[in-house]
């Protein structure tokens, strides 16, 4: 039951928020016309909204406390259990694949296009997942590698007439090269310094693309980039969209396969060790420098390759597509899905990219929601929607008090 004391506290909280948001939410001035609009209704919404949120939070906290007392929270969701069972996993993957393959046959080309974008973000998320999720290096300038890939294709095509399939690996390698370039100076830096340097690096790349007009055609961008070719066949627009979609499906599958194998490889284990404890990891004889560089360059490779596909898909690129917000979206995907978890990142990308597409009315609030999601996830569910399950050996001996997880 809600006691009087709590009621008072909730009221005070909502009053505080009304005060806090008063100048920005309520007053709107027009400095040209010299008029003031008082939007008192916003203050009322704010009061009611925060009052409700206060009690929802209260309720949530109470439930969490009760749960803690009665039983140990099992973190495994149904999805994870399904994936652990080999037979069920095969059925699940088969269904998803079938739906994915038939998808373009049943929906409009617009929907297919949206889906292709979402798939691109899946690969981007998986690429960033190597750097952030596995190696634990917070990279806030990931979009720079994406830009390198996209511009590689656009410029090589413009000047040398190279085709999509030639540039796809080149774009990836270019991005990987940039990843190493960025990696070298920042190897000695700790987590938060690293974050800010990568952010600076991302901005540098964008500013160069914007200002070095003779090289990149400046803010007006590069247009008329050819779509991916299929053995020299002439594709109509609709066919080209479907073709790009299937290309992306194949690409996603390859990425998942590679990342999955990497995770369990010697290198992947070294990354996880590095993330958990750098000093202990070095003491075990892992070359920190090499491991970090490989993480950077591999993560960048995927971003570069997706960049090439992005340029081919939209046929037009300009520096405005590669802002910090883009990096933040990719980071949100990884964080929302669950750092280090492949299936989580896939779901994260699909949710974050598709939701605003289908909730057009809310698209204004998209970035607002991204921000709120990042904060809430960190506070309530730091492991993400679908957390990564570490391979563990169960040790069942009933007379032992603690069973290692």
């Amino acid at each position, binding site marked *: 039951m809600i006691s009087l004391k709590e009621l008072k506290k909730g009221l005070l909280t909502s009053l*505080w*928020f009304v*005060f*806090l*948001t008063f*100048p*920005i*939410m309520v*007053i*709107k*001035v027009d*400095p*040209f016309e*010299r*008029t*003031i609009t008082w939007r008192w209704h*916003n203050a009322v919404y704010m009061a009611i909204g925060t009052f409700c949120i206060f009690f929802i939070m209260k309720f949530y906290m109470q439930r969490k406390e009760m749960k803690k007392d009665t039983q140990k929270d099992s973190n495994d969701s149904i999805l994870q259990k399904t994936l652990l069972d080999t037979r069920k996993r095969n059925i699940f993957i088969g269904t998803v694949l079938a739906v994915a393959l038939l998808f373009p046959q049943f929906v409009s080309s617009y929907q297919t296009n949206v889906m292709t974008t979402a798939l691109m973000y899946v690969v981007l998320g998986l690429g960033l997942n190597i750097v952030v999720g596995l190696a*634990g290096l*917070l990279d*806030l300038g990931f979009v720079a590698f994406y830009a390198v890939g996209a511009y590689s294709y656009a410029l090589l095509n413009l000047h040398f007439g190279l085709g999509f399939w030639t540039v796809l690996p080149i774009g990836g390698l270019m991005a990987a090269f940039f990843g190493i370039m960025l990696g070298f*100076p*920042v190897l*000695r*830096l700790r*987590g*938060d*310094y690293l*974050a*800010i*340097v990568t*952010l*600076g*690096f991302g*901005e*540098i790349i964008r*500013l*160069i693309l914007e*200002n070095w007009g003779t090289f990149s055609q400046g803010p007006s961008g590069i247009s008329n980039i050819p779509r991916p070719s299929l053995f020299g066949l002439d594709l109509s627009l609709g066919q080209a969209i479907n073709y790009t979609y299937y290309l992306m499906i194949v690409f996603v599958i390859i990425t998942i396969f590679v990342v999955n194998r990497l995770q369990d490889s010697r290198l992947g284990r070294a990354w996880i060790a590095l993330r958990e404890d750098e*000093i*202990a990891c070095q003491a075990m004889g892992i070359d920190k420098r090499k491991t970090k560089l490989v993480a950077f360059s591999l993560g960048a490779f995927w971003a570069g390759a997706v960049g090439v596909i992005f340029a081919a898909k939209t046929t037009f690129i300009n520096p405005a597509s590669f802002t*910090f*917000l883009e990096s*933040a979206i990719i*980071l*949100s995907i990884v*964080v929302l899905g669950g750092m280090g978890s492949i299936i989580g990142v896939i779901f994260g990308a699909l949710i974050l990219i598709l939701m605003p597409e289908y909730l057009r009315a809310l698209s*204004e*609030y998209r*970035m*607002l929601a*991204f*921000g*709120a*999601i*990042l*904060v809430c996830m*960190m*506070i309530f569910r*730091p492991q993400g929607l679908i957390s990564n399950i570490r391979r563990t050996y169960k040790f069942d001996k009933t007379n032992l008090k603690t069973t290692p997880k």
Partner: protein
Amino acid sequence: MDYFIELFFSGLTRGSIYALIALGYTMVYGIIGLINFAHGEIYMIGAFTAFIVATVLSIYGFPLLAIVVIAGVAAVVWSSSYAYTIEKIAYKPLRHAPRLSPLISAIGMSIFLQNYVLLAQTSDFLPFPALIPEFAFMEPIAHIVGSSDLVILITTFIVMIILTIIIKFSKIGKAMRATAQDRMMATLVGINVNSVISATFIVGSALAAIGGLLIASHIGQINFYIGFIAGIKAFTAAVLGGIGSIPGAVLGSLILGLTESFATGYVSSDYEDVFAFSLLVLILIFKPSGLLGKTTNQKV
């Protein structure tokens, strides 16, 4: 020579604004080891509050001095309140979480606040009223040093002295330094660490609000995005000087301001931000702890 002096003063002005923001970063980092990514947004909210209050007052026909004082106070009050609330919501629950968690939470807060202002107000550039008048005695050298440059320099100087006095001699300042050195020990000697952390956020954001008011009236326009670049620049300055060190933040800011000013004056104005970030990368390669920062050995 005139050109050189002009660039020098504009560099100093820039640097002192960066210093006002960088101090907030460095103080928070010194106490809880968190890069408060939302600090740039606090500065932006300070500028916006000042803009709204100043415009409302000028429509009602208040005298200039009253507008300056009320807008300044409002900016400080609301910026501090925002910082206080943000700390309670987004950072306090994460105090014992892994290092990356509060940082991501801070980035989320920053994106949230930007879009909150964008949605509640506007995405356009708004003209900020000129709060600093042109002084008559500055007339002969007005082409080199503007009145607002002078006001910014003097204000920053006074604020720095007040801050130094607070940190060095007041009770809360001592508590802040104690908490920065060893939080556990500070708790043991009876310091309420939570309120010290809140106080740090409040002081830091008050400085940022003053910076926001000054720069907005110097440049003459604001929009919701000003906090992002200013925040990154100020952070760069704080890292340059050695994050966690208060004199370091001021030194780093002045160096950054002068570098930018000379680079744009003599080389090219297109690459202003590129110079700033390149400077950051170079410093971090050769001196990862910054100019005045202490090298701390990691303990196992």
